[in-house]
């Protein structure tokens, strides 16, 4: 997958799960303040990403530091590069 394809899969998966408008999903969008997610959503987000990319990330410390959509893009792309 290219990085653009990865970003598209992340954004479409999260848009569907959390019913977020794609127009609001800018890279700098804060997941809590701008997209309205909460702590339960963050747990579900990990499950959605694990399902979309077929990897296990729930034990990753780095997830706790995620604040923006770009943080997710970078984190997931990093995991994919790690395993390629």
């Amino acid at each position: 997958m290219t990085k653009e394809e990865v970003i598209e899969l992340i954004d479409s998966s999260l848009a569907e799960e959390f019913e977020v408008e794609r127009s609001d999903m800018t890279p700098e969008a804060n997941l809590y303040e701008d997209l309205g997610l909460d702590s339960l959503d963050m747990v579900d987000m990990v499950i959605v990403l694990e399902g979309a990319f077929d990897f296990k990330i729930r034990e990753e410390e780095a997830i706790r530091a995620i604040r923006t959509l770009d943080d997710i893009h970078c984190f997931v792309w990093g995991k994919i590069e790690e395993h390629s």
Partner: protein
Amino acid sequence: MPVTSVVVTGIGVISPLGNDFSQLMKALLAGCSGVRELPELEAVGGLRSRLAATVNGIDPKQIPRKFRRSMSNMSIYAYLASQQALIMANYPVEQLNSGDLGVFIGSTLGSTTTSENFFADYFRDHSLERMKTGLFFQLMGHSCAANVAQSLGITGRILAPSAACATSSQSVGYAYEQILMGRQKAILCGGADEFHPLMVATFDIMHAASTHYNQQPTATPRPFDRRRDGVVCGEGSGILLLESESSAKQRGAEILAEVVGFATISDTSSIASPNIGAMVKCMELALADAGLTIADIDYVNAHGTGTEQGDIAEAKAIQTLFAGQVPVSSLKGHLGHTMAASGTIELAGCIGMLQQQQLIATLNLDEVDEHCRGIDHLQQNRVQPVKTILKNNFAMGGINSTLILRSYMND
């Protein structure tokens, strides 16, 4: 000041016959049926009934996602009906979190559909890794009550009675008692259930589901009729806003009816079969609670599900008490059996009858079964003065419940 009267100030309905009180009344008065064929039931092995009375035409997306994520269909129905009841009552938004308003809403089970979906996934590899956070909130026994309180910001008492077909009757009864005791000024009360094939199977395996009318959905169920063959399962939610008379008057709310009596008892003769004596006892206790006699009752709204045993027992119990003097009908010919919601959806129908001064006949009651005779069965709608109504709900598990409603003269 002690509370002396408990009144109804709001009604919310999500039902197979429409998704608000006025739609429901229009359909009931017109003799419409909410029963339809569900072809997908053919795929369920061993299930003989293909019928259900399902809810149609609602838009769950009007509920914000953050609240909807913890809701299965039954909580969605309960939320929409609760919202309607509050709006009809013109209940002040700023009093939702005053602690004066409670939520008593029950269901037969937690969400069976959610449970099925979870286990279907779990049994693939016995992994919990795909389990999302909303699961438990849909499975828990107080899912409807908790979801309604959370989504509407209601901070008073929460109760989630679970007594199968008597659930919402108990919700109203317990709410009536709590308000009389002065513990809450108002309570949103009722029940909700969502359709799942397991619901039908529960009755089908006991030969108590309707199976002979799969090609004629609207001809069944047939409460008290000679050709009745069982229950048609349904879904929905009925919610009443009960309030102390003084609270309602202080707000200037229109009072729709008064709850004047309640009784619920355990019939230990059988967990499944009805008992005439226990039914009579329950109605007598409700009359005593109301301080009324049989002469005060203008109409009996029967549980009347259309089963062989249940209809005979209830007809004989009503005959024992009222000796054929009082008109009787069941609304399940129209609505099917909406389970935990049936008590309050049918109570809504009763309040409509008080308002219209018209009694609604039992749909599909063409020829009264000889074993159900001896009472004044309503086979046609009847315009007549009606002030006081006795309403029965008798549930699996040996749970009997009776409520008494009275019309109210607003100043």
